[in-house]
């Protein structure tokens, strides 16, 4: 069953179109991540779903009910904000029960729901503290708890982990995932962090300029990006790109390098034309094994960045910057010669003009 459905949504701030004819439908119990660079409209879309922004055109359905004109509190949503947005003058308990008191629930029921949320999030010892006396991670837990007590079907997260330090972010990320598995609610999660997106999502919607570029599972987004923007956006370090020319015979020429695209999964079969050839740094094969690959090139390591688990090598191929990510145990120094092997099965090829996947 569809949990949240957005139909032909438009949102204008004055003359600026922030969201353009956006369609999106989210299944019940699904974890959807809206991912994009700042200014792409992802937070705006979330605010529209929450009812905090009036839409310019289109409709929003939650659980089959048209909520386009409904108040935020009547939509059956709970929301978690980046800045936690805890009411500073209330205790944790006051924060959790504020929405329930507004909904005029009976006292025992409020007590019960607060106790349950506190137990799930393990914030029971904090219930009588004020937000000022909590750490960042605890505050965000309380903020999640505030959405939890509302007993809603849809959770909205607006970059909830961006204000936390790296270690806490990783911890809470797992906790959100655990929470989702436990509760099974629909969750819509806005972030600009691709690690969060890849690890949490059932499906990721990559947004750019108010449009969804690709809506697919993390695996598909990573392995078969729909266009060059998505390919460039996902992955760290970013995908390497070469300009080239493909032929209908299934061959490709990158400058002087020519090879066969054996194993490449074409969308519509090979065609003639100018293309972008994209290849992820982590799919490069180094050393003797490279000779087995359809393309093996000699290059020189320019910069080596050892990161412990991985090593990044910066080099140049055919005049293009080329990044390689390899095992941290692979010993290499700047100036060393490399044999770089490329396997077309892992490549992504995009049309030069439309930048769509071919």
């Amino acid at each position: 069953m569809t949990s949240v459905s957005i139909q032909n949504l438009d949102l204008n701030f004055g003359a600026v179109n922030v969201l353009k004819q956006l369609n999106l439908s989210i299944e019940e119990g699904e974890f959807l991540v809206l991912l994009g660079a700042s200014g792409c409209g992802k937070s705006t879309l979330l605010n529209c779903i929450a009812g905090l922004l009036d839409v310019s055109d289109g409709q929003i359905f939650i659980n089959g009910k048209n909520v386009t004109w409904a108040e935020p509190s009547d939509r059956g949503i709970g929301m978690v904000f980046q800045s936690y947005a805890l009411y500073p003058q209330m205790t944790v308990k006051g924060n959790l029960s504020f929405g329930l008191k507004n909904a005029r629930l009976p006292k025992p029921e409020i007590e019960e729901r607060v106790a349950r949320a506190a137990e799930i999030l393990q914030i029971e010892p904090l219930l009588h503290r004020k937000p000022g006396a909590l750490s960042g991670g605890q505050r965000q837990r309380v903020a999640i708890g505030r959405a939890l007590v509302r007993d809603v079907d849809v959770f909205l997260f607006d970059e909830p982990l961006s204000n936390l330090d790296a270690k806490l972010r990783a911890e809470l990320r797992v906790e959100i995932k655990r929470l989702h598995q436990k509760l099974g609610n629909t969750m819509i999660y806005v972030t600009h962090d691709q690690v969060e997106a890849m690890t949490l999502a059932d499906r990721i919607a990559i947004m750019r300029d108010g449009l969804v570029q690709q809506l697919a599972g993390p695996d598909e987004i990573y392995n078969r990006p729909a266009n060059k923007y998505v390919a460039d956006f996902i992955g760290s370090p970013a995908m390497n790109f070469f300009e080239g020319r493909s032929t209908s015979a299934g061959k490709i020429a990158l400058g002087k390098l020519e090879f066969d695209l054996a194993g490449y999964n074409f969308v519509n079969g090979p065609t003639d034309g100018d293309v972008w050839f994209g290849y992820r740094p982590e799919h490069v094969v180094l050393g003797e094994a490279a000779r087995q690959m359809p393309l093996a090139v000699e290059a020189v390591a320019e910069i080596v960045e050892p990161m412990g688990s991985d090593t990044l090598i910066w080099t140049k191929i055919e005049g293009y910057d080329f990044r390689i990510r390899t095992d941290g145990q692979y010993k290499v120094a700047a100036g060393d010669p490399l044999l770089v092997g490329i396997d077309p099965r892992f490549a992504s090829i995009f049309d030069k003009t439309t930048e769509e996947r071919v």
Partner: protein
Amino acid sequence: MANNMNETTAGVVTGPSGPKPRPILSPRNIMIYGTILVVCFYYALPLYVMIVTSLKGMPEIRLGNIFSPPVEITFQPWVKAWAEACTGLDCTGLSKGFWNSVKILIPSATLSILIASINGYALANWKFKGSEVFFTILIFGAFVPYQVVIYPIVIILRELGLFGKLPGLVLVHVIFGMPILTLLFRNYFTSLPEELFKAARVDGAGFWGIYFRIMVPMSLPIFVVALILQVTGIWNDFLFGVIYTKPENYPMTVQLNNIVNSVQGVKEYNVNMAATMLTGIVPLIIYFASGKLFVRGIAAGAVKG
């Protein structure tokens, strides 16, 4: 490696180490504290003269040593200023004016702060069609000179049947406090995180719920600023008080003026000084009681946003 570290430690021993010494009598300190002292002296001297004069008897004042402390301290001038000084035929001192001022101040300050804070909250958080235009017009009001509108207001109050009465004066104070107070509150509420407001909406709080339960409890400093501005402004007001009220409703400032300016034989400087001090004491108390919050509120609300 260990050898290397020893060398570094040895280097620290000989060179500068720890906090840099700062001499107390540096040119910078002399300039700063010198200026502060001069300014303090400049402002405190008249206050000092007022206090000592109000504690002297008339014979001592006639000697003309205005800076010398009183030889014989007397509180008679204060008593006289409060309860016995004459304005024309009425010899009840400032006390009546004090209570009139209180009767004017409490409703004026309360109403204007209440209305302006709601205005500011609506303008900051509930953007409605034309809210910017409304705000611009309201701010324009802050630049209208009072003197221009005195006569129109006389007519309006007369038509409303409020001329010469305390409610009329309260109305005038509330209206004239509105532009600057609304600006103050709007800027303060704008500086509060918007996500709090959003969270409260998701939690189902309405216009008044968010105002009373979320915004007001977070806004103590700006309420104190508004209170100080209004108490000082309304208490010290002379112009509106003298124009829009009748003698039995005159506020303290107008009565002070009448006491100081009505001469019956001798000019009683000590009584005048005591009367002036009495009149000025309410805003001073408010300021000293909440000075810290005042500074915090000014910094948070008026500068930001």
